[in-house]
């Protein structure tokens, strides 16, 4: 509270009837009404609740936004006929919000400013201002309907300007010189001459579909059946747009005004509703319906272009040659299912790269990343033959060993690794591998393939050459089969 005094931020109907108003100090209010119940205002939680309500209103129109304080904006241009008209839409909205426990005032008008004004100061019996004909009704509203600062409002009242009609009669330049441009801007917004854009709480062009239930449902079978129907509708929509979904979100709006969300992802864009339903089936089993779910919303949050011909391999179910196609489909389903359960970064494949240093010759990529095979045909030169043999295990960090080797570049005679001595009976090498020429701080490595008396084979390297002063160090980098 500014100044350290505690003030009332909002009061309910009973308190309003008893004479309390927002802005009074708590001390005064409690003096008048000792039985007053107080609760701390939490602006952040209130804003979050407003965002949630805005999302619950997305079933009426894709352009729904939570405003500041206690305003909810919904742009229903072109959407009202889906619910039978503006009046039925308003009735449905009011019924839903009052069922949550809120007190609601609604209005429909041509512009955002007019709707705000009519909701607060208009006639509750006629919330819909007819299109193009609300001017006379709006002119009779008080100046407070223009969303002006309290200081400017007081100034206008002192000058005797109490209604919108009075303001409208004055020349605009006079108002601007006295109060600034804001009064003129608000008037323009009221009449719809200036646009007041809405930023919806969810991107408006995301494919989404909603299903509302006449009675709240709670059984898992019902939820699954509804999800399947919605998936079919969503996939048809995606087919029209030639897109596939990468991330899907199912939102369950419960009767206690909370929302539970499930998200599934796929490795490749898909619009196969059966496959997506199988991915959703697992988390659906853990969905807590609470006292009931009144609305389900399905949104494709991440989409990617998917042309029609790429889907053909999932449609063919004929004869023997479909074996390979079915196999490909089964593999994609397996990868998606494992990825959703373990995380997509845990499914990897190897990509060979052109580098002499062994640890840089291979990269692990997650499955979804970087389509395309090896990098410039590096596999031919590396495996066997020209480049020398490579181990099956390569340590991420080469382990330091103590080796005894004749100078200058002979293979070691024995070495100690992890407190065990290995006597070398056979050795191959050296194979000099150096890094890229632009990495100057790395030294050359001489690699040796050594075999000890038990038959175990190791890949050792000596870092740097013996140049008369320092003893170079030896490392164990890999294990041969």
């Amino acid at each position, binding site marked *: 509270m500014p100044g350290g005094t505690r003030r009332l931020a909002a009061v309910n109907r009973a308190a309003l009837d008893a004479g309390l108003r927002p802005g009074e100090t708590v001390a005064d209010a409690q003096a008048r009404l000792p039985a007053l119940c107080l609760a701390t205002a939490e602006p952040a939680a209130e804003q979050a609740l407003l965002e949630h309500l805005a999302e619950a209103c997305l079933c009426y129109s894709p352009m729904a936004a939570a405003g500041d304080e206690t305003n909810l904006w919904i742009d229903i241009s072109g959407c009202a006929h889906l619910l039978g008209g503006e009046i039925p839409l308003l009735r449905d909205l009011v019924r839903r919000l009052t069922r949550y426990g809120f007190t609601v005032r609604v209005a429909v008008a041509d512009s955002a400013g007019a709707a705000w004004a009519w909701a607060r100061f208009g006639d509750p019996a006629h919330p819909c201002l007819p299109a193009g004909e609300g001017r006379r009704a709006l002119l009779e509203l008080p100046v407070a309907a223009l969303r002006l600062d309290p200081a400017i409002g007081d100034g206008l009242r002192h000058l005797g300007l109490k209604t919108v009609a009075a303001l409208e009669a004055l020349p605009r330049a006079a108002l601007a010189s006295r109060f600034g441009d804001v009064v003129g801007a608000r008037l323009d917004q009221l009449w719809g001459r200036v646009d007041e854009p809405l930023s919806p709480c969810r991107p408006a062009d995301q494919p989404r579909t909603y299903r509302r239930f006449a009675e709240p449902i709670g059984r898992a079978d019902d939820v699954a059946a509804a999800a399947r129907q919605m998936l079919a509708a969503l996939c048809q929509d995606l087919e029209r747009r030639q897109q596939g979904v990468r991330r899907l979100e199912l939102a369950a709006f419960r009767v206690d005004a909370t929302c539970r969300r499930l998200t599934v992802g796929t490795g490749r864009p898909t619009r196969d509703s059966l496959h997506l339903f199988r991915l959703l089936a697992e988390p659906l089993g853990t969905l807590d319906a609470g006292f009931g779910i009144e609305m389900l919303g399905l949104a494709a949050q991440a989409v990617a272009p998917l042309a029609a011909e790429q889907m053909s391999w999932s449609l063919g179910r004929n004869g*023997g*040659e479909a074996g390979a196609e*079915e*196999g*490909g*489909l*089964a*593999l994609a*389903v*397996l*990868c998606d*299912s*494992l990825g959703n*359960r*373990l995380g997509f970064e*845990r*499914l*990897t*494949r*190897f990509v*060979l790269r052109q580098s002499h240093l*062994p640890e840089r*010759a*291979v990269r*692990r990529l997650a499955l979804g990343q970087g389509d395309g*095979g*090896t990098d410039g045909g590096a*596999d031919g030169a*590396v*495996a*066997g*033959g020209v480049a020398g*043999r*490579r*181990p*099956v*295990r*390569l340590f*991420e960090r080469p382990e330091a060993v103590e080796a005894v080797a*004749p100078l200058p570049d*002979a*293979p070691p*005679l024995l070495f100690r690794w992890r407190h*065990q001595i290995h*006597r070398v*009976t*056979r*050795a*191959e090498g050296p194979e000099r591998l150096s890094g890229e020429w632009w990495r100057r701080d790395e030294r050359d490595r001489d690699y040796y*393939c050594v*075999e000890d*008396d*038990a*038959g*175990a*084979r190791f890949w050792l390297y000596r870092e740097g050459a013996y140049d008369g002063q320092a003893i170079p160090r030896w490392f164990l980098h*890999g*294990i*041969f*089969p």
Partner: protein
Amino acid sequence: MNKMTLAQLRDHIAALESPGRRPAVLPFGVAEIDGFLPWGGLPLGALHEVALPTGDAPDGPTLGLVAMLLGRLARQQERPVLWVSRRLDLYAPGLAAFGLPADRLLMVQPGRAAEGLMALEDAVRCPGLAAVAGDIWELDATAGRRLHLAARDSGVTALVMTHGTGAGRAMTRWRVAAAPSVAPAHPAARLGVGAWRWSLTLVHCRNRGRDENGVAARWLVEWQDETHRLGLVAVPGDRSAVPGSRYRAAG
């Protein structure tokens, strides 16, 4: 000999008649091993176990054998293979030297052992794979039976590397140990490392008993890089280890 040829001919004709059907056996290419196994090779669509060495023994040969089998299965059925393992140090060019190319290998890295077993079971049920390999610490009897039944239904071969003593449900159980190699043929590389040699032990095989050592059979095999084949060296008799020769400086 004639019986084995007849059976191979029958399989070949059956494969020609129905091209979509998977072949039932993966031959090792070594006559003694293929002759010893009652199916003429490694039976597909089944669970096989490979024992991981305990203690400090090197596990390179085990990985080499698994890579060889996976590579052959991938090439025979022209499908990818999946490896479920928590280890991060498998090196693709080394695996490629055994015939397992990087573009046919998918890796799954589970966070916990239970996740690994679950991923293995799901993968075995997927008909789009040729084979699945997994690093499982202990495979109990129930899990082994489930894996075996799933493999039989889908036709995917499951190769499980375990530390335990074996579930008893596997068709075959192998153990690979390193064996000293002999010098390559080139005279100048007299002391170089020759072809990889392994002591391959068939610990347990269905429909075959065990010999006096408690294992079914043991062979000494060698991997030839150029031809990508296994070759039999000799059945190890009872002789003491030959001390390896020391490296001497030239001159």
